């Protein structure tokens, strides 16, 4: 390539690059204008919200205290429906009973429930989530439930997880007994967040669930489902009658065993399960032995005192402390064993036994 030709190419390349960079900068400047306009309107909206929110919240407090004046809400419902809705939802966790009904009634009177129903049918997932979160709260109130119809039930199959969760919570709060089984089935699906969110709401139906769906899920044999069911049972911390805990105390899956031992601390256990608990005090897994010691102590199984004393003699300090605590929970035989062991030559045994005995006597 000759020098003039190279010069021409270089110049051409430079002009093209400058044009390209210039075009990008112009395009970005145009976008910047859009962004600036949006930022301005967003700030203006926030400022307007900040201006009226204290008045709305004060009016809501008065309304919930028994007042009948809803003129403030009617004044702003056309211009600031979102602020009113947010103010109402702010109180959802702080009020209950008739006050909650009044709050839901206000939302219905102001047309917010109808608006939430419409938004719940939209394709925009953000709006749908907000709508169902609001409906889940409002549907505690029967007239709101009638307006929503089957919307919450339909949303149980929504593609978005948060919409599904809101719908589940709405159905549970509305006391939909017929759907409890369906919701429990959702809770034992692999998604941990769904399980966590639903477990607390399902707690009040624990006994009803334990009689049917829980038993079915435990018998099903599908390890992840069994694990999920046991997790829920452990989280409920309720003395639910479980027929066959032994199977899970000796399960091949360690996670299931761990959950079963934690469950054994507060559920009623039958003879077979008690035997399994005592056997587990000799388990090869130190973690399982530790859990078994705790469970035996909580169940106050005096027949296991010799095994607990053995654990106190041969385990490491932490397990020995658990064994000593378990013995301390079973006076007078347990205390007798502790007195004997506190004089042991084994320093760990003597320390753990002495500590537990002193604590138990101080508490007694």
């Amino acid at each position, binding site marked *: 390539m000759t020098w003039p030709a190279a010069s021409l190419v270089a110049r051409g390349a*430079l002009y093209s690059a400058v044009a390209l960079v210039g075009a990008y900068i112009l395009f*970005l400047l145009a976008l910047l204008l859009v*962004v600036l*306009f949006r930022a301005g309107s967003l*700030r203006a909206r926030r400022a307007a919200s900040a201006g009226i929110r204290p008045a709305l919240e004060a009016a809501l407090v008065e309304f919930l205290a028994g007042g009948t004046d809803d003129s403030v809400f009617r004044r702003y419902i056309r211009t600031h429906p979102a602020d009113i809705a947010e103010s109402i939802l702010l109180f959802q966790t702080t009020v209950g009973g008739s006050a909650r009904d009044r709050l839901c009634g206000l939302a219905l009177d102001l047309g917010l429930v109808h608006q939430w129903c419409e938004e719940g049918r939209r394709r925009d997932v953000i709006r749908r989530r907000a709508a169902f979160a609001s409906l889940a709260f409002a549907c505690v109130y029967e007239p709101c439930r009638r307006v929503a119809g089957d919307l919450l039930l339909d949303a149980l199959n929504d593609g978005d997880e948060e919409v599904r969760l809101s719908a589940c919570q709405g159905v549970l709060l509305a006391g939909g007994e017929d759907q409890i089984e369906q919701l429990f089935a959702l809770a034992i699906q692999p998604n*941990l967040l769904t399980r*966590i969110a639903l477990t607390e709401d399902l707690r009040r139906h624990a006994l009803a669930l334990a009689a049917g769906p829980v038993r079915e899920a435990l018998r099903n044999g599908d390890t992840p489902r069994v694990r999920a069911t046991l997790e829920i049972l452990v989280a409920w911390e309720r003395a639910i009658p479980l027929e066959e805990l032994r199977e899970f105390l000796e399960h091949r899956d360690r996670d299931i065993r761990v959950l079963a031992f934690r469950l054994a601390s507060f559920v009623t256990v039958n003879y077979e399960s008690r035997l399994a608990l005592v056997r587990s005090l000799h388990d090869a897994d130190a973690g399982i032995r530790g859990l078994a010691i705790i469970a035996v102590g909580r169940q106050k199984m005096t027949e296991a005192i010799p095994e607990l004393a053995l654990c106190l003699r041969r385990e490491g300090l932490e397990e020995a402390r658990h064994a000593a605590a378990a013995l301390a929970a079973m006076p007078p035989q347990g205390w007798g064993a502790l007195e004997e062991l506190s004089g042991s030559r084994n320093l760990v045994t003597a320390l753990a036994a002495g500590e537990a005995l002193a604590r138990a006597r101080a508490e007694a």
Partner: protein
Amino acid sequence: MAELSVVLSFMVVVLVIALAAFAAAGFDALLKGCFELRRSLRATSYDFGSVLLKSPIVPGVSVIFVPPDASPESRALVRRLLDLHFGRHELVLVLDGPGQVELERWVQEFHLSRQERVVPEGLPTAAIRGCYLSSDPIRLLVVDKQPGGVADALNAGVNAAQYPVIGLVDREAEFIPEFLLRLIRPMLGDWDRTVAVCGVAPPPPAPGLAGRIGAIEWLRLWLARCAAFSAWNKLLPVPGACMLVKRDAVRSVGGFRAGATELFLDLHAAGSANGSRWRIAFLAAPVSFRPAAATWDDLRRQVIDDQQQVAAALRQLGPGAGREFLGLFSIRGLRPLLETAAYVLAAAGWITGLVHPALAALVLVTSAGAGIVISMAAVVLRELAAPSGMAPAALAALCLTAIPENLGYRQIRNLWLIAGFFGVPAVPKQNRGRAVEDRAPAMETRKKQ
């Protein structure tokens, strides 16, 4: 002379093409980051904080912290870590070979008393000298160990941790007390696949030109190295980030060999090697940030620190993982070098008349010009993806800062980046990945003893 001119011109042309490719890759990463940010912000609307706080099903988190000393700053940071809001969590404070005075200071500050405790020996570390618990109602476990370096101390923390998830906090991070609740959520959504979560957001810009340039740097970092890398499942922690990592995953890669960046590189490498579908999630929420640079000194220190961290991590990569992070290596290691070389050659060639002025000008357009585009794009794309709530005037000023940033600061920054990348000290090699009987510390430490 003509031959020299041809050679010089050819070299400049090659460098210009390389710079254009880097600029295109940078812009592509920003776009990718913008879409990913938008997607991830739309993916969740609620944090379920109150539900997660109360639920016993949520896995517990052991936050591990290795303080460099017992200074008031370190103790204040530990206090802040003790104030975290979470259902089941503990702080494992690992003291890496503290002196008697230093240990006493920790004991007095947190009313520690020695407790006999067996620390599992999952990862090889230097010997544990003792464990301490506080008599105050705080969930603190202090592990006093023989000196072995930060990685060794982190591994001791993993061994001592009682919960299945490990929490890590960058030393410079400013974090909110609820960050554990926010970070655990992506993990719960996909527990089997998600092995780690990293959360960070840009800090509010500091006033002044240095502050605005620092803010633009942060936006580029957040969009490209956080959001875009997350979309490509190559996320690495950035300065100021808070992280959660599954303890089993840490153990499966043999523990820490240096800091969090190296751990994440190992997790990526292990995920690719065993064909698993491990995922490291990114939480683009204001849970944690590094304080904004307010002065030129802050800016220089932050740039060099970050560059050294990246360089140290990239240098130790094997061939497989190295290929995966070739882009990062090129942008952080090669680009500043090539760009500086291009400036020097173009300037020298233009002055001596060996390079056509148009070609020399082309270097400026493909570096500084493209840089202005990228910086402006970072500001605009961030606002499109996740509005910051800044005032319009401040936003416009930030966007226009792209011009002085690329006409002066950029060229100096290149020198800082080169110094940071090639001036990084060698990281002591750790005896990791296998159980050792004598519980020896890091190899370098053993040599010193």
